[in-house]
């Protein structure tokens, strides 16, 4: 249970405060409601490029990291399809340094050709290092456009192709900032050794003078229903063959989310889970296998990915997965479900350890609709029945809804 208070500034910035005086530290989390899904098709990778640019100096502060480190703080950020999230942790007596830094880069960045060139090079290297040069690194570059044909989830956060980053201009990034980086498109959550009154005072001083912006209404194309199996085969210099299977499923805010997430847990959470027990331990078809859902804000994907034992063919591996999926559509043992519910409850509790995690959780559930939902998750998972999970399995785990990437090892 995370106790919190919430208020909104005149400029539309939502602020959430959780007091935890266990240690003399405080965490600031700023979630901007912009991600890779908000990019144009010919300018992909911009949300992530922008995350990097946010560390290249703001309008009044040439270096973000140096003053933060002098004050004893540390920070990082991440971008995904839906959001860009920045967070820092700092000794509580220096909390104002965090407000100074974060408010200045919300106000405006110090846009320059030099800063853009530096961050563009960093992102291009990241693209090459993590997605092009690493074994299996291109999986999501291949899988996303196979599963999505219309929706912007069809490109990865890093971008569709290197050229989009290489060709990014100063005008492009200025336009992106102006469009999305505004107080009325962000959620600030503060967790740790602070008080509500203190945060209200600091917010009024540092964030309230920032003007709100006309944030565009999101009009994303709806992905049409998939009607036949899609298969892509690739052969690469990788140690083992892998299979990746993706099915369209519900969004994070859909009522079926909890049953869908538990379906993935039943299949692969822990060594006694279905896929691991049957296909790794008993049948020795895979050396590892995982199931999970992406849990995006728009319609998501349900994934199964497995690493094949050398002697097993792709066809046999795929057949074995389908056999297990047919089983779970028709029978779920109550004991098995109870075990998963316990695991989920433990996972949720552990995800609330640490002030930075709590700040992120509060901001994320506020994004979903209400920060209070953060404290109801265990209850929602606990209410899921085996019938609901089997129904979800029947609805989504069909051949016509499936996209398969057969990733062969060139041996």
């Amino acid at each position, binding site marked *: *249970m*995370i*106790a919190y208070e919430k208020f909104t500034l005149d400029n539309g910035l939502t602020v959430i405060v959780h007091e*935890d005086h*266990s*240690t*003399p530290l405080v965490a600031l989390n700023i979630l901007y409601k912009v991600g890779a899904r908000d990019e144009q098709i010919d300018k992909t990778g911009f949300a992530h490029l922008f995350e990097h640019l946010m560390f290249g100096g703001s*309008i*009044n*502060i040439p270096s973000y990291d140096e*003053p933060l480190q*002098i*004050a*004893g703080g540390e920070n990082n950020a991440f971008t995904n399809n839906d959001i860009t999230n920045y967070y820092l942790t700092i*000794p509580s*007596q*220096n909390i*104002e*340094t965090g*407000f*100074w830094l974060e*408010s*200045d880069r919300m*106000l405006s960045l110090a846009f320059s050709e030099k800063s853009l060139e530096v961050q563009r090079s960093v992102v291009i290297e990241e693209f090459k290092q993590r997605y092009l040069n690493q074994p299996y690194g291109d999986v999501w570059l291949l899988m996303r456009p196979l599963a999505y044909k219309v929706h912007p989830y069809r490109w990865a956060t890093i971008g569709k192709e290197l050229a989009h980053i290489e060709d990014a201009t100063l005008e492009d990034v200025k336009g992106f900032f102006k469009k999305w980086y505004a107080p009325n498109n962000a959620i600030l959550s503060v967790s740790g050794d602070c008080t509500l009154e203190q945060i209200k005072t600091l917010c009024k*001083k*540092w964030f309230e*003078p920032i003007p709100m912006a006309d944030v565009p209404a999101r009009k994303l194309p709806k992905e049409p229903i998939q009607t036949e199996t899609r298969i892509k085969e690739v052969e690469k210099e990788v140690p083992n063959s892998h299979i990746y299977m993706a099915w369209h499923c519900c969004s994070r805010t859909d009522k079926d989310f909890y049953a869908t997430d538990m379906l993935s847990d039943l299949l692969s959470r822990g060594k006694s889970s279905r896929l691991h027990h049957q296909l790794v331990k008993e049948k020795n078809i895979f050396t590892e296998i995982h199931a999970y859902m992406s849990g995006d804000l728009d319609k998501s994907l349900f994934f199964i990915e497995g690493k094949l034992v050398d002697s097993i063919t792709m066809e046999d591996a795929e057949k074995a997965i389908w056999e297990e999926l047919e089983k779970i559509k028709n029978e779920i043992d109550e004991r098995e479900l109870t075990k998963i519910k316990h695991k989920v409850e433990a996972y949720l*509790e*552990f995800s*609330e*350890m640490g002030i930075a995690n709590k700040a992120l959780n509060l901001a994320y559930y506020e994004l979903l609709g209400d920060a209070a939902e953060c404290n109801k998750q265990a209850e929602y998972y606990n209410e899921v029945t085996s019938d609901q999970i089997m129904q979800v399995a029947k609805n989504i785990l069909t051949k016509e809804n499936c996209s398969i990437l057969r990733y062969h090892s060139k041996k």
Partner: protein
Amino acid sequence: MLDRINPPEISIPNAIHLHTPQSFKLKNGTPVYNICEGTQEVVKIELIFAYASLFS
């Protein structure tokens, strides 16, 4: 006018005050140290045995 150019004053703590653990001994002599803090319904237990070898 708000000064956004100069950083707010910072201070370095003279000392860090961590919570003092409660301690007691079991009947068999095992010392137990207990730290109650935070609000999460999570407990971490660590057992430390006074035995180790680099080469075992």
